[in-house]
């Protein structure tokens, strides 16, 4: 068997290294959005930007209709294009744990990392914030590095009402995330991008996770939201 080409920063399966991952069990996600506000509180995240968000879709025809939620956040990719594209190493991957993190004081704000992330996980921090003194640099989900290093679950995991979000070390064969990834079918977002995401979904329907043709004639309410947000339309 031939060896796969493994980038030099990949830590999945590397002995002696931790590799944190999140499993999102979509069977258990109730779309309560507690994760979204818990994360906002954790980092004083300003309006207009999100480290995590929970899009949903309504699928089916009356009366056989269901709602599907798909919590999103940075995938802490094992081969992260954002790290690759940052000219000044302001975004980097931690060997211990595989966190993809930001060095705020170094970031020049060129947005190359935003352009290269296939998941829209990155955003520019606005000038105005409530009490945190970090502005006008790129930010994203940190997998709650500061909490995990203190043996605490990430804030979104901790508050997850459906217990849909599970966090742990994938390199530890006894962890709950290993257990889930090893025993249940999982799926990552846009695997074809070769980013090796470390957020694994149980019960993900690719019809939900793919960009649908529907956006070409998106309903007007959606466009209104985008207008208010100042987003470019298709």
């Amino acid at each position: 068997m031939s060896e796969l080409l493994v980038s030099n920063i990949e830590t999945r399966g590397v002995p002696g290294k931790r590799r944190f991952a999140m499993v999102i069990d979509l069977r258990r996600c109730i779309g309560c959005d507690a994760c979204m506000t818990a994360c906002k509180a954790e980092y004083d995240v300003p309006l207009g930007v999100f480290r995590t968000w929970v899009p949903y879709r309504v699928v089916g025809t009356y009366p056989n209709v269901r709602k599907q939620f798909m919590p999103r956040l940075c995938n802490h990719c094992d081969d992260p294009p954002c790290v690759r594209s940052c000219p000044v190493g302001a975004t980097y991957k931690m060997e211990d744990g595989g966190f993809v993190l930001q060095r705020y004081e170094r970031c020049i704000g060129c947005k190359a990392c935003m352009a290269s992330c296939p998941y829209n996980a990155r955003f520019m921090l606005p000038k105005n914030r409530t009490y945190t003194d970090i502005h006008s640099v790129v930010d994203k989900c940190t997998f709650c590095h500061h909490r995990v290093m203190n043996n605490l679950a990430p804030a979104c995991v901790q508050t997850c009402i459906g217990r849909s979000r599970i966090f742990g070390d994938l390199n530890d064969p006894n962890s709950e995330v290993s257990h889930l990834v090893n025993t249940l079918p999982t799926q990552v977002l846009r695997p074809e991008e070769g980013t090796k995401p470390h957020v694994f979904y149980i019960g993900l329907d690719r019809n939900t996770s793919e960009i649908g043709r529907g956006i070409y004639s998106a309903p007007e309410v959606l466009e209104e939201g985008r207008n208010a947000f100042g987003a470019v339309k298709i």
Partner: protein
Amino acid sequence: MGDYNVFHHIPWTGAYAIYFFTIGISAALFFFSARSWFASCSILEPIRKPAAYVSFVLLVISGLLLISDLSQPMRFLNTMNPFYMNFNSPLAWGGLNLMSFGIVSALYVFMMWKGNDALAKKLGVVGAVLALGLPIYTGFDLTVHQNRPVWNTPLMPVLFVAMSLVSGAAVAIFLALNNASVTKHLRTYMFWSAAAVAVMLIALMGTTAYGGVGAELTFMSLTSGSLSFAFLWVGVILGTIIPIALLLTPVGTNHVGTLAAAALILVGGFALRYSILIGGQVVQSYF
């Protein structure tokens, strides 16, 4: 309350298109200026100085544009900090390229002004290579994003080189003032690079149209959606096909015709850069 409740901005906005445009022209003008030192192209001699000066001015403008678009403009120096430099990033290479081109270009202009032709010629050669690097790296900047339709094709660096040449030639034609032989020479450049752009656009549209849902949606955006005016109508038809057609007709060979074609090409060149830049980002903002 539609199917999505969070929206995303596109990271690289229209300001980058201006930068792509000015830096491309700057590179091509330098290239023409440098070429004029060589016998085969000595015909370009009349525009050697104006091209170099305009190139330098555009370079400065480009640099300022680039810096001002950073959310932390004062930190642009970080890009030159060897301890920070990430050589996996095309932007890091681009920064080096831009910096060294800036230095060479400044020296070049200075030597020319001092009349040190020998040194100017040498600097011209080095600078021309660096100038070529500018559209290549801009192209690379887009290509490396494997997730972006339109951008992620090996065509991109080549296309940017061609676009740089065609827009540069168009500007040079204006710089040539009424000089018929210079204009004629540049018209050839303009024609063939426009033709190259046209061929590449066909290839690009083909691969985009058949590239899966994301790419297909981008194709729809470029041809019938919110970007169709900029891309299809201004970039492709008005700014590429019509000038090519014009240059093929007798009208195109007279001076006014050439200038008209050059003007159209400039408008089109900007529109193409803009729509390609934005086009690669629109669909994903729905993801």
